[in-house]
């Protein structure tokens, strides 16, 4: 991308952000949450696994702004670690599922009717599994942990991505401009990369962003049930589970992770909405 194109991109991004205040606020909140979580290890708030950093189930203090847990660990430090774990785990899983879903969705639809049938029926079968039951199944096979959580997120978000990309590919394939490109002498490969992909890219990007919020929810649910990230590592779900035990005497253990999780998911969804209008040229102004 040339410097001029890059400048134009950022000008357009700034204009898009300013035109939609809610999405702009959501983006700022999301960026702040992520920045704080990234720089968390460098802040003087203790280490997430530092037992006895403060009093057990201690309340607010300057060194532990979110209080301390049942082992005297800084809740803020653990929440920041939880954000990193939940966000990275969910993003990586969704990226894998998104890439696979997009590849299978486009190629199955574009190349062969039989491949399309197989892909569609596979998605149907995957949809038939309730997410939590699928989680139990995967965990039973691979044991609880990060790998299992990632596999579950990928398996749950893959069929949705496949379906959405397939529908979009089918719709774009039948548009006249694809036929015009074929008649104009554009090669098969170029038709896919120059015309088909850019037209389904907005769907892929938006669906991926929504899937990240879904992935965070899945990861949190699994960890809440003890099937995801294992102690001593923390994720937002495992923090909520720990906090639930002491909800009546130390509500700050649940409130912090709960608010952060809700804010993150809401912000991601709002950013997803704004991204749709940003990546689709027909929504440009």
């Amino acid at each position, binding site marked *: 991308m040339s410097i001029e194109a890059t400048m134009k991109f950022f000008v357009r991004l700034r204009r898009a952000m300013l035109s939609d205040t809610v999405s702009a606020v959501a983006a700022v909140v999301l960026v702040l949450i992520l920045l704080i979580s990234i720089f968390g290890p460098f802040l003087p708030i203790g280490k997430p696994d530092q037992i006895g950093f403060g009093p057990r189930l201690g309340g607010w203090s300057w060194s532990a702004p979110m209080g301390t847990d049942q082992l005297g660990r800084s809740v803020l430090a653990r929440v920041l670690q939880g954000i990193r774990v939940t966000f990275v785990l969910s993003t990586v899983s969704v990226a894998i599922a998104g890439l696979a879903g997009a590849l299978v969705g486009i190629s199955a639809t574009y190349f062969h009717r039989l491949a399309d049938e197989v892909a569609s029926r596979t998605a149907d079968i995957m949809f038939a599994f309730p997410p939590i039951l699928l989680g139990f199944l995967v965990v039973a096979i691979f044991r609880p942990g990060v790998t299992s959580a990632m596999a579950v997120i990928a398996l749950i978000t893959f069929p949705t991505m496949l379906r959405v990309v397939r529908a979009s590919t089918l719709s774009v394939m*039948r*548009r*006249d*401009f694809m*036929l*015009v*490109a*074929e*008649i*104009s*002498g*554009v*090669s098969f490969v*170029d038709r896919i990369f*120059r*015309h088909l992909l*850019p*037209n389904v*890219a907005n769907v892929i990007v938006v669906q991926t962003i929504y899937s990240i919020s879904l992935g965070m929810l899945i990861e949190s649910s699994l960890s809440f049930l003890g099937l995801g990230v294992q102690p001593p590592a923390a994720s937002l779900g495992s923090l909520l589970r720990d906090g639930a035990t002491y909800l009546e005497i130390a509500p700050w253990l649940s409130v912090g992770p709960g608010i952060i999780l809700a804010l993150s998911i809401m912000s991601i969804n709002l950013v997803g909405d704004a991204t749709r209008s940003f990546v689709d*040229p*027909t929504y*440009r102004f």
Partner: protein
Amino acid sequence: MIEIKQPIIEVRDLVVEYKSHPLPVRALDAVDFTASADETVGFVGESGSGKSTLAMALGGVSRSGVRPSRGSVQTFGRDVFALRGQDRRRFLSEDIGFVFQNPIGSLDPTRRIGHQFFTPDGQPLNEKRVEELLSSVGLEDTGRIMASFPHEVSGGMAQRVCIAMAISVNPPLLIADEPTAALDASVKTQILDLLTELRARARSTLILVSHDLHSVRKYCDRVCVMYGGRIVEAGPSRDVFDCPRHPYTAALLRSIPGFEGPGGRIEPIPGYPPSLNGQASNCTFAPRCALQIPVCRENRPPVSVEGDRTKCCWLPGNEIGMEISQAGRGYHA
């Protein structure tokens, strides 16, 4: 079937069927058609009569990838459905230009207009040539148009862009599938004038698919009236519209404003278009035809040729007589 000297398009016994449940839909039912160089041929008929399918088949293309189940299409001496790979690519990009109904839909919404012009090799066309092409179709401010996305220009401008794309290699055959259907009346005439002017300048062949009988009468040398996947009548457009020989042509003319004559009334065609499942064993227009005779419902009508006109009907032309010729009386070009 009309026989013309030195035909560049020869369609023989063409049958095209779309997959459907429980029976395939026969969009083209044993169609014969020829066209020569340097003429404009119009295809008219109701929706679903097979006009677009036939027009697309002349270039060997189809939106749903369907191929003929019988017959052949020879365009410039080549069997278009037998062409493969590089041969097909070169044939499509060098010999044929297509203009579609929806100009905005014919342009890639994610690419700027200037980046949608290609050489026959599929490489982007240089900016100067794009500017020349846009100017040749009457567009001003070409720089702004080239930098615009398709949704940023009007329908008329977009259709001119599509025409510029279609003529970028001066193809000897231009196929326009309802090119003015999505445009308002003032732009419609401009676009049709432009297409015929470009055709005359290049001495190429123009196939014009349209619902607008007035435009077809004005701009086309010949017309093919289609019904139920067949060409039911063909001939010089003024002759066909002034003195139709097929009951469907007459009924079609009576159903459109401008052909009804002084004090006349517009009469819709009664009934519904036929379901096109399989080969028709009788005249598919018979259930809607006021002049039907018993044989119409029993046997498939033959194609009869008289001079430069053909029709596909059991009724002899002179027996139809005044009933049909009434249709053309009120029209004043």
